């Protein structure tokens, strides 16, 4: 690194919205985007004329492969009446939306634009699981694919390395799943807004009604240990360790700091942004960490002058349960090997000292890949402004929130830190 990172001028978030995430037979990319866009408009306290938007950045990963149409920037620009303003699609696999955000920040910080819409959209559920698996594998390293690795497989292998190094086991992963579901239960936008206990009880009720043998689960752990309820996908990753296939869209409105108060008296400021890239599984120096996340975090902390302990809440990229634990360590929230203990002690729960994935995370909120990065920031926007409703964290003077994205098997990672002043 030569010289300190800096932004040419300050950038603020003045609006944020998302569609419901889920599997929709009757909603396509454009419709989902419109849902997110309209909600974003409604969150700008003093209003915004869409014609004042200077440019659009759109994160999208799989539309080329899944719906055979890749040139999504102008399609979305036209959808929301922005043509002939520029539209740029960003590609960073599952971090595509986070890259759209970052490019939007740079575009304003450089002084070129004043008002930029950053966003993401993905439409995945109209393909079968095999096609989705193949499509996502486009973001893995070719060596991994040839060795038979799937996405859950890469994270499964990292989990075995983590278990062997730090003495964790599957029971610790279950803590992540149970917590995410408890949070998502309070998020109406989540694909699975039910707790594990709700799911258990529904299954028991259904078995009773049908006169089938009633499962004897006494608690969530017994449910998650039951291989019929929670089958192996890529050991030790089981069904409930994996994020679902999702459709969805999300939008965040960025403006130059000096005009932020024209849009709201309560803007959030972009104080830290970072991005890193990482090697394939075989070439990692350490199988239990993501070098790209560590680099992104270093960049974002340095820019903001903040330390990991200053971040009060965070959305992290829990595409698989083990990933959440590893990110907690890579972001410096907990020491290497301590992440799983922190989750076990409840520190990352909604009422813990460091609430993580209050939205339910990718696991439960859903993971329409291109929409995830800006979707995470919608949650941070709500929490920092005290608008998260039932799942509002009970932290006094909540000011600093962060979102971390991961693309591929750790190839592209980002960290964004927002501040309410």
């Amino acid at each position, binding site marked *: 690194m030569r010289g300190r990172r800096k932004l040419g001028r300050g950038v603020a978030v003045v609006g944020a919205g998302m569609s419901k995430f889920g599997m929709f037979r009757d909603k396509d990319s454009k419709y989902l985007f419109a849902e997110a866009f309209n909600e974003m408009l409604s969150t700008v306290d003093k209003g915004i004329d869409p014609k004042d938007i200077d440019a659009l950045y759109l994160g999208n990963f799989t539309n080329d492969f899944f719906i055979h149409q890749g040139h999504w920037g102008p399609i979305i620009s036209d959808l929301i009446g922005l043509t002939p303003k520029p539209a740029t699609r960003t590609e960073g696999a599952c971090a595509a939306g986070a890259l759209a955000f970052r490019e939007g920040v740079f575009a304003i910080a450089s002084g070129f634009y004043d008002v930029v819409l950053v966003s993401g959209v993905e439409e995945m559920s109209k393909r079968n*699981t*095999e096609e989705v*698996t*193949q499509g996502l*594998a486009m973001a893995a390293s*070719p*060596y*991994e*694919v*040839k*060795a*038979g*690795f*799937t996405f*859950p*497989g*890469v994270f*499964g*292998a*990292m*989990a*075995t*390395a983590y278990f*062997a190094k730090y003495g964790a086991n599957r029971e610790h992963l279950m803590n992540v799943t149970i917590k995410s579901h408890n949070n998502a239960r309070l998020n109406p936008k989540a694909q699975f807004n039910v707790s594990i206990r709700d799911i258990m009880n529904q299954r028991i009720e259904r078995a009773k009604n049908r006169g089938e043998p009633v499962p004897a689960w006494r608690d969530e752990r017994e449910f998650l240990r039951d291989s019929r309820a929670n*089958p*192996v*996908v*890529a*050991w*030790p*990753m089981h069904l409930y360790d994996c994020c679902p296939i999702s459709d969805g869209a999300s939008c965040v409105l960025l403006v130059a700091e000096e005009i932020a108060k024209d849009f709201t008296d309560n803007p959030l400021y972009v104080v830290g942004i970072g991005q890193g890239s990482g090697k*394939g*599984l*075989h*070439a*990692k120096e350490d*199988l239990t960490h993501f070098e790209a996340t560590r680099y992104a975090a270093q960049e974002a902390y340095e820019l903001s002058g903040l330390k990991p302990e200053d971040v009060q809440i965070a959305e992290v990229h829990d595409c698989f349960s083990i990933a959440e634990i590893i990110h907690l360590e890579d972001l410096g929230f907990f020491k290497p090997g301590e992440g799983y203990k922190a989750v076990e002690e409840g520190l990352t729960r909604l009422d813990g000292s460091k609430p993580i994935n209050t939205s339910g995370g990718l696991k439960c909120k859903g993971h329409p890949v291109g929409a995830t990065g800006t979707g995470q920031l919608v949650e941070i926007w709500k929490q920092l402004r005290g608008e998260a409703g039932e799942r509002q964290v009970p932290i006094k003077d909540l000011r600093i929130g962060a979102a971390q994205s991961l693309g591929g098997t750790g190839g592209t990672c980002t960290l964004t830190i927002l501040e309410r002043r």
Partner: protein
Amino acid sequence: MEERPFNDISYERFLSEEKLMGSRCQKCGVFFVPPRVICIKCYGTEMEWVEMKGKGKLAAFTCIAIGPPLMIKEGYDRKHPYVSGVVELEEGVRVVARIEGVDGSKPETIKIGTPLQVEFLHRGEEKNLTTFLTFRPS
């Protein structure tokens, strides 16, 4: 030793000849498997081929129940999971490979650190021949 370009095509051809090859930087001596054409340590561009002994130990693994079409065609499924892993070679570098000779349906019997020996799994014929880098307990 060999006049082949330092790339994935050569790496694959060596595999089909039952050789696990990497590239070594002639300037700083660091080596890479699969081969790299640029040394990412010293940016040297003079490489030479080196053959790995094919011995190592299991560094990480996963038992995959839901695999890609290629593996499903080979008969693997939820009841018959296959194993993919990361192998640390004696020479100090890691490779990703299929792991044979272990029971993917009993992951608790598979141990990190297990000594492994390379094996070359050939599939298809002639022009369509593909060789999969594989390891099994030695």
